[in-house]
């Protein structure tokens, strides 16, 4: 696979040609913050962003996504979106999260056809972090740098961007750039240095102990006072879930047109912190207490999903820390409390 060195202007030209060629979503400024959105011109792309408000998973499992449609006499029909698109500027921790989504939706049990279609329609251009966000701790979670899942990896280095293709799809994407010089040994060294530096500096919070120790730690912490202490201030607003790149729970609803006979069944992001997430008929709620829901989230990240797919389901993006208005959702704080004991 090719490794090239793009000058700023060449990168811009390449991105503009991608935009001319199809659907491109890229990171752009949203006030003082950043968000992935449809990219209209390369000048709007901000590869120097710190973190996006929502993770790029919204293009693989959108906030609301039609699953099937139904009509009178026509029964049910699948709705599959497989229109190709390019996702520009996915940070390593988000890429790691997408890799986990792949494990859940494509490898664990039955394949989710809807996720699969979008995933296969996606060409992912990852990029190494230029500006660490205020709450990132990917360095602690082993996700400051990523080595798989993407089609192209872009790293800003002194003097340009090292651009590496990692799949035939990535090769094809790069072909649109025309003639670009190969990266030199020196450029490669610079890239390595950026990645090494990122492993060290994406640590705005310091996790005590190894991430892989979490399942065991959690195994003995069910009755730890931290759950009650923190959850006392929990709004049950689900913000921590909704901004999380590894959260994927959903609700399913039906909607009809005015005939009441035709319509769609869609899924919408759900959040296990919300009060009725585990409520069933007869009024019973299996996680009625705020603390139970709060605890569930950390167990899911640190124990339940790891037991399923072998990876800690927290990639250290720090979004939940920022999103939590009550300022209680910092996973590092919670896990460190457990490490310290009661």
């Amino acid at each position, binding site marked *: 696979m090719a490794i090239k060195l793009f000058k700023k202007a060449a990168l811009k030209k390449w991105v503009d040609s991608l935009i001319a060629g199809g659907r491109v979503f890229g990171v752009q400024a949203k006030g003082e913050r950043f968000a992935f959105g449809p990219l209209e011109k390369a000048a709007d792309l901000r590869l120097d962003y710190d973190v996006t408000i929502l993770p790029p998973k919204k293009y693989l499992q959108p906030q609301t996504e039609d699953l099937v449609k139904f009509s009178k006499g026509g029964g049910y029909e699948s709705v599959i979106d497989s229109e190709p698109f390019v996702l520009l500027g996915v940070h390593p921790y988000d890429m790691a999260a997408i890799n986990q989504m792949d494990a859940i939706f494509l490898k664990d049990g039955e394949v989710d056809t809807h996720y699969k279609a979008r995933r296969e329609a996606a060409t992912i251009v990852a990029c190494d972090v230029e500006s660490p966000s205020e709450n990132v701790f990917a360095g602690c979670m082993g996700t400051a740098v990523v080595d798989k899942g993407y089609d192209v990896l872009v790293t800003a280095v002194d003097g340009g961007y090292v651009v590496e293709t990692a799949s035939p799809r990535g090769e094809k994407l790069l072909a649109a750039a025309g003639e670009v010089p190969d990266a030199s040994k020196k450029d490669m060294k610079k890239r390595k240095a950026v990645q090494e530096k990122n492993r060290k500096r994406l640590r705005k919070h310091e996790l005590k102990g190894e991430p892989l120790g979490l399942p065991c730690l959690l195994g003995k912490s069910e009755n730890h006072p931290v759950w009650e202490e923190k959850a006392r201030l929990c*709004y049950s607003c689900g913000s921590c879930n909704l901004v999380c790149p590894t959260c994927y729970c959903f609700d399913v609803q039906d909607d009809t047109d005015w005939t*009441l006979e035709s319509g769609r069944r869609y899924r919408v992001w759900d959040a296990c912190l919300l009060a009725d997430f585990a409520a069933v008929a007869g009024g019973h709620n299996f996680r009625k207490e705020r603390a139970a829901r709060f605890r569930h989230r950390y167990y899911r990240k640190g124990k339940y999903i790891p037991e399923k797919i072998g990876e800690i389901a927290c990639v250290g993006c720090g979004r939940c820390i920022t999103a939590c*208005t*009550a300022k209680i959702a910092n996973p590092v704080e919670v896990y460190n409390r457990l490490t310290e004991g009661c």
Partner: protein
Amino acid sequence: MSKPRLAIFDFACCEGCQLQIVNLEEEILDLISLVDPVEWREAISDQSDTYDIAIVEGSITRPEDEERVKKIRERSKVLIALGACAAIGGVNKLKNNFDMDDVKKCVYGKDADLPHLNTAMTKAVDEVVPVDFYVHGCPIDRDEFKHVVKSVALGKKPNIPVYPVCVECKLRENVCRYEFNELCLGPITRAGCGARCPSNGSWCFGCRGLAPDPNVDAAKEVMDKYKKTVDDLRDRILLFNSKQEHADV
């Protein structure tokens, strides 16, 4: 199956919620294809009428209106409270923070005692009669209204969020208003509006009412973190949620 008979009534309000029904534009014809509107304003004199669905807009602010809404309840199978005034009393409840005589004097001065200017404590509809379904908001959200009407016609319980506005705010990928040093009621307000205000650069002032079991105690403690006071919080809650359960901060 014959079409359900629909009647719409208004009480003290700005009628902005009914206007949202007009604002369905062409879809009004669809609405009529689903339900059979038999009464829109109270002008119809036939008091023996019964309705399958009664939609009530506005707060109850006078004793005679209490009687009227009771009659409506008796004559309807399903009663829907339309909009904040009907559902929670809305902005009209601000009045309840004052003495009624003082309220009248303030507006009408020496004429305050004229009988037709009489007023009483504002009540939401469910403080007078039982309500089956609510369309929240000031004004209502057209899509939610459609959903409720269709659900009732389908014989299913509408899916009205019980979670707070923050959920939809996150789905819209807004920057949280607290990051702008604003006091937003999103964390304790019932969602369903698509986080309309934060999405337009403003704080949520709670027009959809408090979410069920809102963590108001947390809100009080959290104010500190944003250099706001419990008084500020109370002020904002009072605006649309005066005299609601959980609103006594």
